[in-house]
């Protein structure tokens, strides 16, 4: 042990897994001036995007901006490699709008690799880990090359590698994209860390040769120059890569028949796969068998990068044998001559029991051991990165003996996700939906800095980002006050002006704020106009944020009042360790409490099987 401590292979924080969670954890930990060892599989690029080539989306776009405001990498990398930007839900109201960026897969990994390589505090080791052990307070990972690597804290971000198996028709291979690692790799920790009883399953569609498709039969979806970049220090609309189109295609009845004919050859339907797939991301087999009356489904055809010849047919995830994939594909309009470059396949893997984690993502039985990403049963790059940065921050804070950072579910999607994960187990991969958030109207992309800057400030990192957030907050406050205080007089000149601008009637003096709230006006454009008219210039991010915040102000306040009563009790801290020994609580409830370890009353409430009397007792002692 002693010799390892002196060794350059001993780090403050050891991270196993170089995916989206791993690199965020590594990067943020070094901001606290800690040395990080990042052990990553040989031949798998850092932050690879093995499934769909996109970052962001409804709810997920918010997560990317939250990561960015905390000081993470994802937004920066997505901006740098983005080949198409879109605003989703554009016609449906500002609060539900989200950004999604199609990325060039090679550029994405390349950019991540550069950012990590330039960071002198991170040592990337390309190695397959065979065994992990905890010796004293330290963690030791043994690589397949026989070398050992150590750390005071260990963050596991191993994705789908825990006991993974891939399925492509009748062909089954061990490995979560690669071969052999299994839960035995957890070594002597395996006894302490339990694995969820259900195995999870996820799949990916075949990759098609881009020149083999007939694009005249698809609907073109072009990039949106108005979409803002993710990283707050980038100029909002400046693109770093040449932009590409995506396309919308449709399945056909003949194609669906072809799939239905081959039910027996589908690993999902013939029993070969036992894992549970996500309902929100069904394979094409699922669509064929679950909705026998529907033959026309959307398929989005997305480029995977400037220098790749492959297109990603989003919506065609499948684990049918290659020849069946080939056959059904060619029944699709525009796909008549489609060539498969890489067949679609499904992955089955184990996930850990996340109810054994606390809100810092640390395992409750093994101090200093953190889990983040897909190994926690989530799906999606953004969800993984969001957990990675929280695990990285908290491992660092804990090492420095500082108070942990916990994001609330009332002001961030990351907070919603982590609380959901540690509160109960799910039987399908967890994905963020805006519907999971109680506070959707407030948790928008445009006010991310308002929501997150307090958390960021508490880290006391004092970088360029912190300066920017402080400037932003000051200007935001200033512009908001201006909108509340500036009066527009109902005089002839202003009436004429209102008519010219199609602002509507001006019958009495109004505040600028009231003008922005008029239902028929776009508040952002209007505020922009009014700023210009007064010779004021603001960061477009701030104009957008202020305009939308004012528009939703009343609704958010009303929702707050409604929610406050319920929140008050729910937020109270619960001392689970005292409760599990409390004889006033029934044995079964104490068992559940010991398993789930609720930290707030609302978590306790959400545990299945907790008896009313227990809640009454706990509430009675809290109030």
């Amino acid at each position: 042990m002693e010799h390892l401590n002196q060794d350059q292979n001993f780090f403050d924080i050891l991270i196993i897994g170089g995916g989206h969670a791993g690199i965020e954890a590594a990067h943020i930990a070094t901001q606290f001036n800690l040395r990080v060892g990042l052990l990553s599989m040989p031949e798998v690029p850092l932050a690879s995007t093995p499934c769909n080539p996109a970052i962001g989306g409804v709810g997920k776009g918010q997560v990317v901006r939250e990561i960015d405001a905390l000081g993470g990498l994802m937004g920066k990398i997505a901006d740098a490699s983005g080949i198409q930007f879109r605003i989703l839900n554009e016609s449906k109201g500002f609060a539900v709008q989200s950004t999604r960026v199609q990325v060039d897969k090679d550029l994405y990994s390349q950019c991540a690799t550069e950012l990590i390589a330039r960071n002198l505090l991170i040592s990337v080791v390309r190695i397959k880990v065979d065994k992990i052990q905890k010796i004293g307070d330290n963690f030791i990972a043994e690589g397949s090359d026989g070398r050992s690597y150590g750390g005071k804290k260990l963050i596991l971000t191993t994705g789908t590698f825990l006991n993974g198996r891939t399925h492509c028709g009748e062909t089954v291979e061990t490995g979560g994209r690669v071969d052999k690692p299994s839960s035995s790799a957890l070594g002597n920790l395996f006894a302490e860390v339990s694995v969820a009883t259900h195995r999870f399953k996820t799949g990916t569609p075949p990759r098609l040769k881009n020149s083999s498709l007939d694009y005249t039969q698809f609907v073109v979806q072009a990039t949106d120059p108005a979409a803002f970049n993710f990283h707050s220090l980038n100029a909002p609309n400046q693109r770093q890569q040449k932009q590409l189109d995506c396309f919308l295609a449709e399945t056909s009845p003949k194609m669906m028949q072809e799939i239905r004919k081959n039910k027996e050859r589908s690993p999902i339907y013939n029993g070969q796969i036992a894992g549970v797939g996500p309902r929100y991301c069904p394979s094409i087999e699922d669509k064929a068998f679950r909705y026998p009356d529907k033959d026309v489904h959307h398929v989005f055809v997305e480029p995977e990068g400037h220098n790749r010849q492959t297109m990603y047919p989003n919506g065609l995830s499948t684990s049918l044998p290659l020849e069946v994939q080939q056959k059904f594909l060619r029944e699709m309009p525009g796909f008549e001559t489609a060539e498969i470059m890489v067949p679609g396949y499904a992955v089955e893997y184990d996930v850990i029991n996340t109810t054994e984690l606390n809100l810092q993502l640390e395992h409750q039985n093994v101090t200093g051991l953190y889990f983040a990403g897909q190994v926690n049963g989530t799906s999606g790059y953004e969800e993984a990165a969001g957990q990675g940065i929280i695990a990285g921050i908290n491992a660092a804070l804990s090492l420095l003996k500082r108070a942990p950072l916990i994001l609330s579910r009332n002001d961030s999607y990351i907070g919603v996700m982590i609380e959901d994960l540690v509160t109960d187990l799910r039987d399908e991969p967890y994905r963020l939906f805006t519907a999971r958030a109680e506070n959707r109207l407030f948790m928008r992309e445009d006010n991310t800095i308002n929501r997150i800057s307090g958390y960021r400030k508490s880290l006391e990192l004092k970088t360029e980002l912190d300066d920017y957030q402080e400037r932003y907050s000051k200007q935001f406050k200033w512009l908001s006050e201006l909108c509340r205080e500036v009066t527009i007089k109902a005089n002839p000149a202003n009436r004429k002006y209102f008519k010219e601008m199609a602002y509507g009637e001006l019958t009495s003096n109004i505040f600028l704020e009231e003008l922005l709230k008029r239902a028929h006006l776009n508040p952002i454009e209007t505020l922009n106009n009014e700023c210009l008219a007064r010779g004021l210039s603001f960061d477009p991010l701030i104009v957008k944020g202020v305009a939308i915040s004012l528009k939703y102000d009343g609704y958010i306040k009303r929702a707050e009042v409604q929610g406050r009563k319920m929140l008050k009790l729910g937020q109270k801290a619960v001392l689970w360790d005292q409760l599990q020994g409390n004889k006033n609580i029934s044995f079964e409830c104490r068992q559940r409490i010991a398993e789930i370890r609720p930290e707030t009353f609302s978590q306790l409430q959400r545990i299945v099987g907790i008896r009313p009397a227990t809640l009454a007792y706990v509430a009675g002692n809290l109030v």
Partner: protein
Amino acid sequence: MHYDDQPIIACSTGGSQSAAIHLVRLSGFSDLLSLQAAFSGPLEKCRPRTVFLSDIVEQKQVLDQAMLIYFEGPNSYTGENVLELNLHGNPLIVERVMELFTSQFGFRHAKEGEFTYRALTNGKMQLSQVEGLDLVLNANSELILNQGFKSLHGELYLKFTELYRYFIKLKATVEMQIDFAEDMGQEQAQILMDEALGKFENLLEELYLKSRGPLVDLATPEVVIYGPTNAGKSSLFNQLLKNERAIVSPEAGTTRDYVSENLHYKKNRYSLTDTAGIRQTSNAIEGQGIKRSRKLWDRAFYKLLVLNPFEENRDWMATEGIDFLVLSHKDRPEFAQKAAIYLENYSDIGILAVDLKNPGSIGPELLNAPIEPLLEKSLGQQTPELDSQVLDITYILDGVTSKFNKLAGENAIIVPRHKEALAVTWESFKRFQRLSLESYDIAILSNEINSLGINLQELIGIISADEVLDDLFSNFCIGK
């Protein structure tokens, strides 16, 4: 659960059934004397833990004579000031007394188990006792519908469950449009939305109307006689009051420009109003008079229209919501031909023909054969025995009773908590509808749906992440 300290009121004995007595419990008021306006007796003479007799009065009207027991906090069940009222066992009395305290003394209806909850928080109850209650009630944290709700009759239960399902569908439709916008075209989304909205609205409206109209009326059901001058309204009025089976209250009815009397029949009390008293002399006043009688008619619980078939009645026949039609002047020749047209037009309501040759003194008779089945249908009773050959006017009164029992029975929403929640839900839904017309912002709409959901949960007691504690106490009987 509301964590406020507003005074609460509940009927501890259920209160929806007739019984010998009902016990109404009030808790959390600051001072007994602050309730003086509701009692005729001097409350300063009411000693804690002794029985005290007083009328309960609302603006000089006596609601009931009650026995009071006052428990001064902290020496009470909840640890707060508690007043127990032993009332006569009529649900309507309970209803009116509770309304008096909620509308004028700042009380609100207690949530299920709230008395117990207060006892617990005020340290008046030990956990073991709660645990015991829990076991007795076999509470289950996954219980979907609370006890008060389950005790309701089957049909209503199903309706509420259905409403919840429609709501889930509505909410899902909205969520789908946000989180899965790309998977669904705008057009398809609109179709789904319209369908979900339509189903939800229809059922909610049905329930809302059920909770609203009848109950207000059932507290003081008004039977109104309406019709043109000289059709025979006053004669019918007198007949109804004179009937030996109906007892006219000794106390005088409200007399303004119409005549109204209290009428007790088969254990229920009605107010019987004759709009004939409304004078129709000069044009200006006539307008006022018609307006006033219209108003009486509109809010009436039971509507009796009296027509003389020998007059031109086209305008009167357009009147809506008639419960019973009385045709006068049966004694005149050609009555049968004249009456035939009414039989056709009013095929679904009861018709009684009366002989009013000597107004006020001649007993009513049944119009001949074709009307019998109509009567049966409208009164919901057996075909009258024709042994006397002459049916008496009590059949009108039976019609009134039948309607009353139907409305006050299993179909009416009379649990106050449900009434309150339905009113709030309805309001919330109307706001949602208004918003959906003026805004396409689905974020705002979904916000509105969420608050609708919160109100709805109050109504049907569905467990939500935020209100699990409510559910806990909802497994305890109200007032205990």
